[in-house]
Protein backbone atom coordinates (compact mmCIF):
# COMPACT_ATOMS: atom_id res chain seq x y z
CA UNK A 1 0.00 0.00 0.00
CA UNK A 2 1.20 3.50 -0.75
CA UNK A 3 2.38 5.47 2.20
CA UNK A 4 0.48 8.71 2.79
CA UNK A 5 2.45 11.89 2.13
CA UNK A 6 0.65 13.64 4.98
CA UNK A 7 -0.67 12.01 8.15
CA UNK A 8 -2.71 14.12 10.55
CA UNK A 9 -3.79 12.54 13.84
CA UNK A 10 -5.91 13.90 16.71
CA UNK A 11 -4.93 17.41 15.65
CA UNK A 12 -6.04 20.21 17.97
CA UNK A 13 -5.64 23.94 17.98
CA UNK A 14 -7.06 26.13 20.72
CA UNK A 15 -7.00 29.92 20.75
CA UNK A 16 -7.24 31.96 23.92
CA UNK A 17 -10.00 34.49 23.34
CA UNK A 18 -10.29 35.67 26.96
CA UNK A 19 -10.80 39.28 27.91
CA UNK A 20 -7.65 41.05 29.21
CA UNK A 21 -6.47 40.01 32.70
CA UNK A 22 -7.74 43.16 34.45
CA UNK A 23 -11.20 42.86 32.92
CA UNK A 24 -11.36 39.23 33.98
CA UNK A 25 -10.45 40.17 37.55
CA UNK A 26 -12.98 43.01 37.76
CA UNK A 27 -15.83 41.24 35.98
CA UNK A 28 -14.94 37.86 37.54
CA UNK A 29 -15.05 36.15 34.19
CA UNK A 30 -13.15 32.92 33.48
CA UNK A 31 -10.71 32.35 30.65
CA UNK A 32 -12.34 31.44 27.36
CA UNK A 33 -10.80 29.20 24.73
CA UNK A 34 -11.92 28.68 21.19
CA UNK A 35 -11.34 25.19 19.83
CA UNK A 36 -10.72 25.99 16.18
CA UNK A 37 -9.57 22.46 15.40
CA UNK A 38 -10.83 19.75 17.72
CA UNK A 39 -9.43 16.26 17.16
CA UNK A 40 -8.98 15.97 13.41
CA UNK A 41 -7.56 12.88 11.64
CA UNK A 42 -6.87 12.41 7.94
CA UNK A 43 -4.23 11.09 5.55
CA UNK A 44 -3.42 12.21 2.01
CA UNK A 45 -1.92 9.83 -0.54
CA UNK A 46 0.72 11.17 -2.94
CA UNK A 47 -0.69 12.59 -6.18
CA UNK A 48 -4.18 12.95 -4.72
CA UNK A 49 -6.34 15.89 -3.71
CA UNK A 50 -8.01 15.96 -0.33
CA UNK A 51 -10.54 18.74 0.09
CA UNK A 52 -11.70 20.23 3.36
CA UNK A 53 -15.16 21.78 3.05
CA UNK A 54 -17.33 23.55 5.55
CA UNK A 55 -18.87 26.90 6.41
CA UNK A 56 -16.97 29.86 7.84
CA UNK A 57 -15.50 29.18 11.26
CA UNK A 58 -15.36 25.41 10.85
CA UNK A 59 -11.58 25.40 11.19
CA UNK A 60 -10.56 24.54 7.63
CA UNK A 61 -8.19 27.48 7.18
CA UNK A 62 -6.67 26.86 10.62
CA UNK A 63 -5.78 23.34 9.46
CA UNK A 64 -4.05 24.85 6.41
CA UNK A 65 -2.00 27.04 8.72
CA UNK A 66 -1.19 24.12 11.04
CA UNK A 67 -0.07 21.91 8.16
CA UNK A 68 2.18 24.62 6.73
CA UNK A 69 3.57 25.46 10.17
CA UNK A 70 2.12 28.98 10.36
CA UNK A 71 0.43 27.93 13.61
CA UNK A 72 1.75 25.41 16.13
CA UNK A 73 -0.70 22.63 17.06
CA UNK A 74 -2.06 22.56 20.64
CA UNK A 75 -2.29 18.77 20.48
CA UNK A 76 -2.05 15.81 18.12
CA UNK A 77 0.43 15.33 15.34
CA UNK A 78 1.11 16.24 11.72
CA UNK A 79 3.56 14.03 9.84
CA UNK A 80 4.79 15.12 6.45
CA UNK A 81 6.61 12.23 4.78
CA UNK A 82 8.59 14.34 2.41
CA UNK A 83 11.10 17.14 2.21
CA UNK A 84 9.63 20.08 4.17
CA UNK A 85 11.03 22.41 1.51
CA UNK A 86 8.72 20.74 -0.96
CA UNK A 87 5.57 22.08 0.66
CA UNK A 88 4.08 25.35 -0.61
CA UNK A 89 0.91 27.33 -0.14
CA UNK A 90 -1.52 29.25 -2.36
CA UNK A 91 -3.72 31.77 -0.59
CA UNK A 92 -7.21 33.06 -1.28
CA UNK A 93 -6.53 36.72 -1.88
CA UNK A 94 -4.27 37.29 -4.88
CA UNK A 95 -4.19 40.98 -3.97
CA UNK A 96 -2.83 40.52 -0.45
CA UNK A 97 -0.45 37.64 -1.09
CA UNK A 98 1.86 39.37 -3.58
CA UNK A 99 4.24 42.13 -2.50
CA UNK A 100 3.09 45.22 -4.45
CA UNK A 101 6.60 46.73 -4.49
CA UNK A 102 8.29 43.72 -6.06
CA UNK A 103 8.42 42.91 -9.73
CA UNK A 104 6.81 39.60 -10.69
CA UNK A 105 10.20 38.11 -11.55
CA UNK A 106 11.47 38.71 -8.03
CA UNK A 107 8.25 37.37 -6.47
CA UNK A 108 8.42 34.13 -8.45
CA UNK A 109 12.16 33.72 -7.84
CA UNK A 110 11.91 34.22 -4.07
CA UNK A 111 11.42 30.54 -3.09
CA UNK A 112 14.28 29.59 -5.41
CA UNK A 113 16.62 32.17 -3.90
CA UNK A 114 15.64 31.12 -0.38
CA UNK A 115 15.74 27.34 -0.83
CA UNK A 116 18.72 27.14 -3.21
CA UNK A 117 20.71 30.33 -2.68
CA UNK A 118 23.66 29.13 -4.77
CA UNK A 119 21.65 28.92 -8.02
CA UNK A 120 23.36 31.06 -10.67
CA UNK A 121 21.42 34.19 -11.60
CA UNK A 122 21.06 33.15 -15.25
CA UNK A 123 19.43 29.91 -14.16
CA UNK A 124 17.03 31.76 -11.86
CA UNK A 125 15.95 34.02 -14.71
CA UNK A 126 15.50 31.06 -17.04
CA UNK A 127 13.46 29.21 -14.42
CA UNK A 128 11.23 32.23 -13.77
CA UNK A 129 10.52 32.55 -17.48
CA UNK A 130 9.74 28.85 -17.70
CA UNK A 131 7.40 29.04 -14.69
CA UNK A 132 5.53 32.03 -16.09
CA UNK A 133 4.96 30.15 -19.35
CA UNK A 134 3.83 27.07 -17.41
CA UNK A 135 1.03 29.02 -15.72
CA UNK A 136 -0.02 30.70 -18.96
CA UNK A 137 1.64 34.09 -18.55
CA UNK A 138 4.27 35.61 -20.81
CA UNK A 139 7.99 35.47 -19.81
CA UNK A 140 8.02 39.22 -20.50
CA UNK A 141 5.62 39.69 -17.56
CA UNK A 142 8.56 39.20 -15.16
CA UNK A 143 9.39 42.91 -15.23
CA UNK A 144 5.85 44.05 -14.39
CA UNK A 145 4.36 44.79 -10.96
CA UNK A 146 1.38 42.88 -9.46
CA UNK A 147 -1.03 45.82 -9.89
CA UNK A 148 -0.69 45.50 -13.66
CA UNK A 149 -2.48 42.13 -13.55
CA UNK A 150 -6.11 41.06 -13.09
CA UNK A 151 -7.19 38.83 -10.19
CA UNK A 152 -6.95 35.63 -12.23
CA UNK A 153 -3.50 36.53 -13.55
CA UNK A 154 -2.34 37.34 -10.02
CA UNK A 155 -3.46 33.91 -8.86
CA UNK A 156 -1.38 32.47 -11.72
CA UNK A 157 1.61 34.40 -10.35
CA UNK A 158 0.95 32.89 -6.88
CA UNK A 159 0.89 29.44 -8.48
CA UNK A 160 4.14 30.10 -10.38
CA UNK A 161 5.75 31.19 -7.11
CA UNK A 162 4.51 28.07 -5.34
CA UNK A 163 5.96 25.91 -8.14
CA UNK A 164 9.38 27.59 -8.06
CA UNK A 165 10.89 25.22 -5.51
CA UNK A 166 9.65 22.06 -7.32
CA UNK A 167 7.09 21.26 -4.61
CA UNK A 168 5.42 17.91 -4.07
CA UNK A 169 2.65 19.16 -1.85
CA UNK A 170 0.53 22.29 -2.19
CA UNK A 171 -1.83 23.67 0.43
CA UNK A 172 -4.46 25.72 -1.40
CA UNK A 173 -6.70 27.85 0.83
CA UNK A 174 -9.75 28.95 -1.20
CA UNK A 175 -7.59 29.61 -4.27
CA UNK A 176 -10.46 30.67 -6.52
CA UNK A 177 -13.00 32.18 -4.11
CA UNK A 178 -12.05 35.75 -5.00
CA UNK A 179 -12.32 35.14 -8.75
CA UNK A 180 -15.15 35.39 -11.28
CA UNK A 181 -16.47 32.01 -12.47
CA UNK A 182 -14.95 32.15 -15.95
CA UNK A 183 -11.57 33.04 -14.42
CA UNK A 184 -12.05 30.37 -11.75
CA UNK A 185 -12.45 27.78 -14.53
CA UNK A 186 -9.13 28.86 -16.05
CA UNK A 187 -7.31 28.58 -12.70
CA UNK A 188 -8.92 25.22 -11.75
CA UNK A 189 -8.01 23.74 -15.15
CA UNK A 190 -4.45 24.98 -14.71
CA UNK A 191 -4.20 23.41 -11.24
CA UNK A 192 -5.50 20.08 -12.52
CA UNK A 193 -3.08 20.11 -15.46
CA UNK A 194 -0.13 20.86 -13.16
CA UNK A 195 -1.16 18.06 -10.82
CA UNK A 196 -1.29 15.61 -13.73
CA UNK A 197 2.02 16.71 -15.20
CA UNK A 198 4.03 17.09 -11.99
CA UNK A 199 2.38 14.51 -9.76
CA UNK A 200 1.46 17.16 -7.17
CA UNK A 201 -0.52 16.45 -4.02
CA UNK A 202 -3.10 19.04 -2.97
CA UNK A 203 -4.74 19.87 0.32
CA UNK A 204 -7.58 21.92 -1.15
CA UNK A 205 -9.70 24.10 1.08
CA UNK A 206 -12.98 25.51 -0.16
CA UNK A 207 -16.52 26.31 0.87
CA UNK A 208 -17.81 25.59 -2.63
CA UNK A 209 -19.03 22.02 -3.03
CA UNK A 210 -19.21 22.13 -6.82
CA UNK A 211 -15.57 23.25 -7.03
CA UNK A 212 -14.55 20.58 -4.53
CA UNK A 213 -16.43 17.89 -6.44
CA UNK A 214 -14.50 18.87 -9.56
CA UNK A 215 -11.07 18.96 -7.89
CA UNK A 216 -10.94 16.40 -5.07
CA UNK A 217 -10.38 12.65 -4.83
CA UNK A 218 -11.42 12.61 -1.19
CA UNK A 219 -13.64 15.12 0.64
CA UNK A 220 -13.65 15.81 4.38
CA UNK A 221 -16.68 17.73 5.62
CA UNK A 222 -15.96 19.87 8.68
CA UNK A 223 -18.33 21.27 11.29
CA UNK A 224 -17.17 23.33 14.28
CA UNK A 225 -13.56 22.14 14.23
CA UNK A 226 -14.30 18.47 13.60
CA UNK A 227 -14.40 16.22 10.57
CA UNK A 228 -17.94 14.82 10.55
CA UNK A 229 -17.55 12.83 7.37
CA UNK A 230 -14.72 11.83 5.05
CA UNK A 231 -15.32 9.88 1.84
CA UNK A 232 -14.08 9.53 -1.72
CA UNK A 233 -15.78 12.27 -3.77
CA UNK A 234 -18.02 9.91 -5.76
CA UNK A 235 -19.30 8.16 -2.64
CA UNK A 236 -19.89 11.40 -0.77
CA UNK A 237 -22.13 12.77 -3.51
CA UNK A 238 -23.85 9.44 -4.19
CA UNK A 239 -24.35 8.45 -0.58
CA UNK A 240 -23.77 11.21 1.96
CA UNK A 241 -23.72 9.65 5.44
CA UNK A 242 -23.81 12.59 7.86
CA UNK A 243 -27.00 14.67 8.25
CA UNK A 244 -24.90 17.85 7.97
CA UNK A 245 -23.44 16.73 4.64
CA UNK A 246 -26.94 15.96 3.41
CA UNK A 247 -28.06 19.42 4.49
CA UNK A 248 -25.13 21.05 2.67
CA UNK A 249 -25.84 19.09 -0.50
CA UNK A 250 -29.51 20.08 -0.28
CA UNK A 251 -28.76 23.77 0.07
CA UNK A 252 -26.41 24.26 -2.87
CA UNK A 253 -28.24 25.72 -5.84
CA UNK A 254 -28.49 23.27 -8.70
CA UNK A 255 -28.13 24.80 -12.16
CA UNK A 256 -29.60 21.70 -13.72
CA UNK A 257 -32.82 22.13 -11.74
CA UNK A 258 -33.64 25.85 -11.79
CA UNK A 259 -36.45 27.47 -9.79
CA UNK A 260 -36.50 24.66 -7.27
CA UNK A 261 -38.60 25.36 -4.21
CA UNK A 262 -37.21 23.91 -1.06
CA UNK A 263 -37.39 24.25 2.68
CA UNK A 264 -33.94 25.41 3.73
CA UNK A 265 -32.38 24.00 6.87
CA UNK A 266 -33.07 26.21 9.85
CA UNK A 267 -30.59 27.45 12.41
CA UNK A 268 -27.00 28.58 12.14
CA UNK A 269 -23.56 27.35 13.06
CA UNK A 270 -23.16 27.93 16.83
CA UNK A 271 -20.22 29.84 18.25
CA UNK A 272 -17.05 27.73 18.49
CA UNK A 273 -16.34 29.39 21.88
CA UNK A 274 -19.28 27.59 23.47
CA UNK A 275 -20.09 24.63 21.18
CA UNK A 276 -23.05 22.41 22.01
CA UNK A 277 -22.39 19.31 24.13
CA UNK A 278 -21.92 15.88 22.59
CA UNK A 279 -22.25 16.01 18.82
CA UNK A 280 -21.94 19.73 18.04
CA UNK A 281 -24.48 19.38 15.21
CA UNK A 282 -27.25 17.97 17.45
CA UNK A 283 -29.29 21.20 17.90
CA UNK A 284 -29.83 21.41 14.12
CA UNK A 285 -30.02 17.71 13.41
CA UNK A 286 -33.35 16.13 12.42
CA UNK A 287 -32.11 12.69 13.57
CA UNK A 288 -30.67 13.68 16.95
CA UNK A 289 -31.54 11.60 20.00
CA UNK A 290 -30.47 11.59 23.68
CA UNK A 291 -27.05 10.09 23.15
CA UNK A 292 -26.10 12.85 20.66
CA UNK A 293 -26.48 15.45 23.42
CA UNK A 294 -24.33 13.54 25.91
CA UNK A 295 -21.56 11.89 23.96
CA UNK A 296 -19.25 13.00 21.21
CA UNK A 297 -19.48 10.67 18.20
CA UNK A 298 -16.20 9.49 16.67
CA UNK A 299 -15.40 7.89 13.36
CA UNK A 300 -15.38 4.16 14.17
CA UNK A 301 -14.21 1.24 12.07
CA UNK A 302 -17.55 -0.56 12.42
CA UNK A 303 -19.53 2.47 11.19
CA UNK A 304 -18.97 2.70 7.43
CA UNK A 305 -15.26 2.06 7.87
CA UNK A 306 -14.48 5.31 9.74
CA UNK A 307 -16.18 7.47 7.15
CA UNK A 308 -18.68 9.22 9.43
CA UNK A 309 -18.95 10.46 13.01
CA UNK A 310 -22.66 10.11 13.76
CA UNK A 311 -24.67 8.02 16.22
CA UNK A 312 -27.70 7.93 13.90
CA UNK A 313 -25.53 6.52 11.11
CA UNK A 314 -24.06 4.04 13.60
CA UNK A 315 -27.53 2.90 14.69
CA UNK A 316 -28.61 2.52 11.07
CA UNK A 317 -25.45 0.60 10.20
CA UNK A 318 -25.96 -1.85 13.08
CA UNK A 319 -29.49 -2.83 12.13
Amino acid at each position, binding site marked *: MTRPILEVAALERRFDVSAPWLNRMIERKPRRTLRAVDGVDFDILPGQTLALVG*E*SGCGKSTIAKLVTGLHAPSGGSIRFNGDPDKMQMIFQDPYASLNPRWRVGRIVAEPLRTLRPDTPEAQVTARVEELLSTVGLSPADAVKYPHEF*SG*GQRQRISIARALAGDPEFLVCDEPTSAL*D*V*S*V*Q*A*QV*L*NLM*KRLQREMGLTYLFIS*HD*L*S*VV*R*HMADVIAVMYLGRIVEIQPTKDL*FANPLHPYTR*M*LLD*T*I*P*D*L*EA*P*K*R*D*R*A*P*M*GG*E*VPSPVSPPSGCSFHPRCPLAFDRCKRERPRREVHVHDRRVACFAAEAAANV
Partner: protein
Amino acid sequence: MTETVLDVRNLRVEFPTRRGTLTAVDDISLTIAKGEILGVVGESGAGKSMTGMAILGLLEPPGRIASGEIWLSGDRIDNLSETQMQAVRGRRIGAIFQDPLTSLNPLFRVGDQLVETIRLHTQLSKSAARQRAIELMREVGIPAVEERIDNYPHQFSGGMRQRIVIALALCAEPELIIADEPTTALDVSIQAQITALLKRLCRERGTAVMLVTHDMGVIAETADRVAVMYAGRLAELGAVEDVVRRPQHPYTTGLMGSIPSLRRDEAELQMIPGAMPRLGAIPEGCAFNPRCAFAGPKCRRDTPRIHGNGAACWLALEGATA
Protein backbone atom coordinates in the same frame (compact mmCIF):
# COMPACT_ATOMS: atom_id res chain seq x y z
CA MET B 1 -51.64 41.57 -18.41
CA THR B 2 -49.36 41.73 -15.42
CA GLU B 3 -48.60 45.12 -13.98
CA THR B 4 -45.17 46.51 -14.87
CA VAL B 5 -43.45 47.95 -11.81
CA LEU B 6 -40.05 48.84 -13.21
CA ASP B 7 -39.50 49.89 -16.79
CA VAL B 8 -35.96 50.81 -17.79
CA ARG B 9 -35.68 52.16 -21.32
CA ASN B 10 -32.36 52.50 -23.16
CA LEU B 11 -30.47 53.38 -19.97
CA ARG B 12 -26.96 54.71 -20.46
CA VAL B 13 -24.63 55.53 -17.55
CA GLU B 14 -21.45 57.44 -18.27
CA PHE B 15 -18.38 58.40 -16.29
CA PRO B 16 -16.54 61.39 -17.69
CA THR B 17 -12.83 60.95 -16.95
CA ARG B 18 -9.69 62.78 -18.00
CA ARG B 19 -9.07 60.13 -20.62
CA GLY B 20 -12.51 60.33 -22.15
CA THR B 21 -16.02 59.20 -21.30
CA LEU B 22 -16.48 55.65 -20.07
CA THR B 23 -19.82 53.99 -20.67
CA ALA B 24 -20.53 51.73 -17.67
CA VAL B 25 -24.10 50.90 -18.71
CA ASP B 26 -24.79 50.94 -22.42
CA ASP B 27 -28.36 50.99 -23.72
CA ILE B 28 -30.01 48.66 -21.21
CA SER B 29 -33.76 48.08 -21.41
CA LEU B 30 -35.60 45.82 -19.03
CA THR B 31 -38.87 45.50 -17.13
CA ILE B 32 -39.93 43.84 -13.90
CA ALA B 33 -43.56 42.94 -13.26
CA LYS B 34 -45.39 42.90 -9.95
CA GLY B 35 -44.31 39.88 -7.89
CA GLU B 36 -41.50 39.03 -10.29
CA ILE B 37 -37.83 38.44 -9.48
CA LEU B 38 -35.47 39.54 -12.23
CA GLY B 39 -31.92 38.30 -11.80
CA VAL B 40 -29.14 40.47 -13.16
CA VAL B 41 -25.97 38.44 -13.52
CA GLY B 42 -22.48 39.21 -14.78
CA GLU B 43 -18.84 39.20 -13.79
CA SER B 44 -17.09 42.03 -11.97
CA GLY B 45 -17.21 45.19 -14.02
CA ALA B 46 -20.12 44.08 -16.22
CA GLY B 47 -22.24 47.03 -15.04
CA LYS B 48 -24.83 45.09 -13.04
CA SER B 49 -24.43 47.02 -9.77
CA MET B 50 -24.20 50.27 -11.69
CA THR B 51 -27.61 49.56 -13.24
CA GLY B 52 -29.08 49.05 -9.76
CA MET B 53 -27.45 52.22 -8.44
CA ALA B 54 -28.77 54.23 -11.40
CA ILE B 55 -32.32 53.06 -10.64
CA LEU B 56 -31.86 54.01 -6.97
CA GLY B 57 -30.48 57.41 -8.00
CA LEU B 58 -27.30 56.64 -6.08
CA LEU B 59 -24.67 56.96 -8.80
CA GLU B 60 -21.46 58.37 -7.41
CA PRO B 61 -20.48 61.57 -9.22
CA PRO B 62 -19.10 62.07 -11.82
CA GLY B 63 -21.19 59.05 -12.87
CA ARG B 64 -24.47 60.13 -14.43
CA ILE B 65 -27.40 58.90 -16.46
CA ALA B 66 -26.51 60.12 -19.93
CA SER B 67 -29.68 59.02 -21.67
CA GLY B 68 -32.66 56.73 -21.31
CA GLU B 69 -35.61 56.68 -18.97
CA ILE B 70 -36.54 54.87 -15.76
CA TRP B 71 -40.22 54.45 -14.96
CA LEU B 72 -41.62 53.18 -11.66
CA SER B 73 -45.30 52.11 -11.86
CA GLY B 74 -46.00 54.76 -14.48
CA ASP B 75 -43.95 57.57 -12.89
CA ARG B 76 -40.74 58.69 -14.47
CA ILE B 77 -38.01 58.75 -11.78
CA ASP B 78 -34.69 59.28 -13.57
CA ASN B 79 -35.20 63.06 -13.86
CA LEU B 80 -36.31 63.71 -10.26
CA SER B 81 -34.41 66.09 -8.02
CA GLU B 82 -32.40 64.66 -5.12
CA THR B 83 -35.12 65.71 -2.64
CA GLN B 84 -37.86 64.09 -4.70
CA MET B 85 -35.71 60.98 -5.14
CA GLN B 86 -35.23 60.73 -1.36
CA ALA B 87 -38.99 60.35 -1.07
CA VAL B 88 -38.93 57.53 -3.62
CA ARG B 89 -36.00 55.68 -2.07
CA GLY B 90 -37.06 53.72 0.98
CA ARG B 91 -40.75 54.40 0.43
CA ARG B 92 -41.19 53.04 -3.08
CA ILE B 93 -37.85 51.33 -3.74
CA GLY B 94 -36.14 49.34 -1.00
CA ALA B 95 -32.45 48.47 -1.18
CA ILE B 96 -30.49 45.52 0.22
CA PHE B 97 -26.72 45.52 -0.14
CA GLN B 98 -24.04 42.88 0.22
CA ASP B 99 -22.66 43.78 3.62
CA PRO B 100 -25.39 44.05 6.26
CA LEU B 101 -22.99 45.75 8.68
CA THR B 102 -22.63 48.83 6.50
CA SER B 103 -26.41 49.13 6.12
CA LEU B 104 -26.99 49.18 9.88
CA ASN B 105 -25.84 51.83 12.31
CA PRO B 106 -23.70 50.05 14.92
CA LEU B 107 -24.56 52.63 17.63
CA PHE B 108 -28.34 52.17 17.59
CA ARG B 109 -30.53 49.28 18.66
CA VAL B 110 -32.02 47.49 15.64
CA GLY B 111 -35.55 48.14 16.91
CA ASP B 112 -34.93 51.89 17.05
CA GLN B 113 -33.52 51.84 13.53
CA LEU B 114 -36.63 50.05 12.29
CA VAL B 115 -38.97 52.40 14.18
CA GLU B 116 -37.17 55.46 12.80
CA THR B 117 -37.41 54.17 9.24
CA ILE B 118 -41.09 53.26 9.63
CA ARG B 119 -41.94 56.69 11.07
CA LEU B 120 -39.99 58.44 8.33
CA HIS B 121 -42.16 56.85 5.68
CA THR B 122 -45.53 56.49 7.43
CA GLN B 123 -47.76 58.41 9.85
CA LEU B 124 -47.62 55.74 12.56
CA SER B 125 -47.22 56.70 16.24
CA LYS B 126 -44.14 55.55 18.11
CA SER B 127 -45.86 52.61 19.79
CA ALA B 128 -47.64 51.56 16.59
CA ALA B 129 -44.32 51.77 14.72
CA ARG B 130 -42.69 49.56 17.33
CA GLN B 131 -45.51 47.06 16.94
CA ARG B 132 -44.96 47.15 13.19
CA ALA B 133 -41.19 46.65 13.70
CA ILE B 134 -41.91 43.54 15.77
CA GLU B 135 -44.21 42.19 13.04
CA LEU B 136 -41.57 42.85 10.37
CA MET B 137 -38.81 41.15 12.36
CA ARG B 138 -41.09 38.17 12.86
CA GLU B 139 -41.93 38.11 9.17
CA VAL B 140 -38.27 37.94 8.15
CA GLY B 141 -37.76 35.04 10.55
CA ILE B 142 -35.96 36.46 13.56
CA PRO B 143 -36.57 34.22 16.58
CA ALA B 144 -37.55 35.61 20.03
CA VAL B 145 -38.26 39.07 18.58
CA GLU B 146 -39.38 40.68 21.86
CA GLU B 147 -35.97 39.93 23.38
CA ARG B 148 -33.89 40.77 20.34
CA ILE B 149 -35.55 44.02 19.26
CA ASP B 150 -33.43 46.04 21.71
CA ASN B 151 -30.14 44.39 20.72
CA TYR B 152 -27.41 46.16 18.77
CA PRO B 153 -26.36 44.99 15.27
CA HIS B 154 -23.12 43.37 16.55
CA GLN B 155 -25.17 41.03 18.72
CA PHE B 156 -26.65 39.38 15.63
CA SER B 157 -25.02 36.86 13.29
CA GLY B 158 -24.40 37.72 9.63
CA GLY B 159 -27.52 35.92 8.44
CA MET B 160 -29.71 37.56 11.12
CA ARG B 161 -28.28 41.00 10.26
CA GLN B 162 -29.17 40.48 6.60
CA ARG B 163 -32.72 39.60 7.73
CA ILE B 164 -32.87 42.89 9.62
CA VAL B 165 -31.68 44.76 6.53
CA ILE B 166 -34.48 43.06 4.59
CA ALA B 167 -36.95 44.13 7.30
CA LEU B 168 -35.63 47.70 6.94
CA ALA B 169 -36.15 47.54 3.17
CA LEU B 170 -39.73 46.36 3.76
CA CYS B 171 -40.64 49.11 6.25
CA ALA B 172 -42.59 51.25 3.82
CA GLU B 173 -43.91 48.33 1.75
CA PRO B 174 -42.01 49.33 -1.39
CA GLU B 175 -43.14 48.32 -4.88
CA LEU B 176 -39.60 47.40 -5.88
CA ILE B 177 -36.62 45.98 -3.99
CA ILE B 178 -33.13 46.20 -5.43
CA ALA B 179 -30.97 43.52 -3.82
CA ASP B 180 -27.29 43.83 -4.74
CA GLU B 181 -25.37 40.62 -3.89
CA PRO B 182 -27.55 40.07 -0.79
CA THR B 183 -26.17 36.59 -0.10
CA THR B 184 -22.56 36.89 -1.22
CA ALA B 185 -21.15 37.45 2.28
CA LEU B 186 -23.12 34.54 3.74
CA ASP B 187 -22.49 30.80 4.11
CA VAL B 188 -24.39 28.44 1.81
CA SER B 189 -26.92 27.27 4.38
CA ILE B 190 -27.70 30.88 5.39
CA GLN B 191 -27.73 31.91 1.72
CA ALA B 192 -30.48 29.36 1.09
CA GLN B 193 -32.51 30.79 4.00
CA ILE B 194 -32.20 34.35 2.67
CA THR B 195 -33.12 33.47 -0.93
CA ALA B 196 -36.12 31.47 0.31
CA LEU B 197 -37.16 34.52 2.37
CA LEU B 198 -36.86 36.86 -0.64
CA LYS B 199 -38.93 34.49 -2.76
CA ARG B 200 -41.63 34.22 -0.10
CA LEU B 201 -41.86 37.99 0.41
CA CYS B 202 -42.03 38.55 -3.31
CA ARG B 203 -44.83 36.02 -3.66
CA GLU B 204 -46.86 37.14 -0.63
CA ARG B 205 -46.53 40.90 -1.05
CA GLY B 206 -46.29 41.13 -4.83
CA THR B 207 -43.06 43.11 -4.55
CA ALA B 208 -40.95 43.30 -7.70
CA VAL B 209 -37.33 42.32 -7.01
CA MET B 210 -34.19 43.07 -8.96
CA LEU B 211 -31.60 40.57 -7.73
CA VAL B 212 -28.08 41.58 -8.74
CA THR B 213 -25.46 38.87 -8.27
CA HIS B 214 -22.43 37.20 -9.84
CA ASP B 215 -23.70 33.80 -8.68
CA MET B 216 -25.57 31.91 -11.41
CA GLY B 217 -26.66 29.34 -8.80
CA VAL B 218 -28.51 31.94 -6.74
CA ILE B 219 -30.19 33.27 -9.90
CA ALA B 220 -31.23 29.78 -11.05
CA GLU B 221 -32.69 29.12 -7.63
CA THR B 222 -34.47 32.42 -7.09
CA ALA B 223 -35.22 34.40 -10.24
CA ASP B 224 -38.12 34.14 -12.70
CA ARG B 225 -36.23 35.85 -15.50
CA VAL B 226 -32.56 36.63 -15.90
CA ALA B 227 -30.59 39.38 -17.62
CA VAL B 228 -26.97 38.51 -18.43
CA MET B 229 -24.69 41.55 -18.67
CA TYR B 230 -21.33 41.83 -20.40
CA ALA B 231 -19.16 44.94 -20.66
CA GLY B 232 -22.06 47.24 -19.72
CA ARG B 233 -24.45 45.74 -22.25
CA LEU B 234 -27.24 43.23 -22.12
CA ALA B 235 -25.98 39.95 -23.59
CA GLU B 236 -29.06 37.85 -23.00
CA LEU B 237 -32.49 38.17 -21.41
CA GLY B 238 -35.06 35.45 -20.88
CA ALA B 239 -36.88 33.06 -18.58
CA VAL B 240 -34.42 31.52 -16.13
CA GLU B 241 -35.08 27.95 -17.31
CA ASP B 242 -34.31 28.90 -20.91
CA VAL B 243 -31.18 30.89 -20.18
CA VAL B 244 -29.78 28.25 -17.80
CA ARG B 245 -30.65 25.20 -19.89
CA ARG B 246 -30.47 26.55 -23.45
CA PRO B 247 -28.30 29.68 -23.46
CA GLN B 248 -28.31 31.47 -26.84
CA HIS B 249 -25.40 33.85 -26.43
CA PRO B 250 -21.91 32.33 -26.72
CA TYR B 251 -20.89 34.28 -23.60
CA THR B 252 -23.75 32.80 -21.56
CA THR B 253 -22.90 29.34 -22.90
CA GLY B 254 -19.26 29.81 -21.85
CA LEU B 255 -20.26 31.17 -18.47
CA MET B 256 -22.53 28.21 -17.77
CA GLY B 257 -19.85 25.77 -18.94
CA SER B 258 -17.23 27.26 -16.65
CA ILE B 259 -19.27 26.42 -13.54
CA PRO B 260 -18.32 22.97 -12.19
CA SER B 261 -21.33 20.66 -12.44
CA LEU B 262 -22.83 18.86 -9.47
CA ARG B 263 -24.00 15.96 -11.62
CA ARG B 264 -21.72 15.45 -14.60
CA ASP B 265 -18.04 14.51 -14.35
CA GLU B 266 -15.90 16.76 -16.45
CA ALA B 267 -12.18 16.27 -16.96
CA GLU B 268 -11.85 19.93 -17.90
CA LEU B 269 -14.05 22.93 -17.30
CA GLN B 270 -15.07 24.87 -20.36
CA MET B 271 -13.01 28.04 -20.61
CA ILE B 272 -13.70 31.38 -22.24
CA PRO B 273 -10.34 32.57 -23.57
CA GLY B 274 -9.15 36.00 -22.47
CA ALA B 275 -10.93 38.38 -20.12
CA MET B 276 -13.74 40.94 -20.21
CA PRO B 277 -12.51 44.19 -21.82
CA ARG B 278 -11.92 47.25 -19.67
CA LEU B 279 -14.52 50.01 -20.06
CA GLY B 280 -12.08 52.21 -21.95
CA ALA B 281 -11.21 49.46 -24.43
CA ILE B 282 -14.48 47.89 -25.56
CA PRO B 283 -13.99 46.54 -29.08
CA GLU B 284 -16.02 47.64 -32.10
CA GLY B 285 -19.18 45.70 -32.84
CA CYS B 286 -20.13 43.00 -30.35
CA ALA B 287 -18.15 43.51 -27.14
CA PHE B 288 -17.60 39.75 -26.89
CA ASN B 289 -16.28 39.23 -30.44
CA PRO B 290 -12.52 38.87 -29.63
CA ARG B 291 -13.30 35.97 -27.26
CA CYS B 292 -16.01 34.38 -29.39
CA ALA B 293 -15.34 31.25 -31.47
CA PHE B 294 -18.15 32.11 -33.88
CA ALA B 295 -17.40 35.78 -34.54
CA GLY B 296 -17.69 36.92 -38.16
CA PRO B 297 -17.10 40.25 -39.94
CA LYS B 298 -20.49 41.65 -38.94
CA CYS B 299 -19.75 40.92 -35.24
CA ARG B 300 -16.60 43.03 -35.49
CA ARG B 301 -18.47 45.91 -37.14
CA ASP B 302 -22.02 46.25 -35.79
CA THR B 303 -23.21 46.09 -32.19
CA PRO B 304 -26.06 43.61 -31.67
CA ARG B 305 -28.66 44.89 -29.21
CA ILE B 306 -31.79 43.49 -27.57
CA HIS B 307 -34.65 45.34 -25.93
CA GLY B 308 -36.65 42.35 -24.78
CA ASN B 309 -36.17 38.59 -24.50
CA GLY B 310 -33.40 37.14 -26.65
CA ALA B 311 -29.66 37.17 -27.13
CA ALA B 312 -27.63 40.14 -28.34
CA CYS B 313 -25.72 38.02 -30.81
CA TRP B 314 -25.84 38.26 -34.59
CA LEU B 315 -25.88 34.46 -34.81
CA ALA B 316 -28.96 34.23 -32.63
CA LEU B 317 -30.60 37.33 -34.11
CA GLU B 318 -30.09 36.44 -37.75
CA GLY B 319 -29.79 32.69 -37.42
CA ALA B 320 -26.78 32.41 -39.72
CA THR B 321 -23.09 33.18 -39.74
CA ALA B 322 -22.89 36.92 -39.75
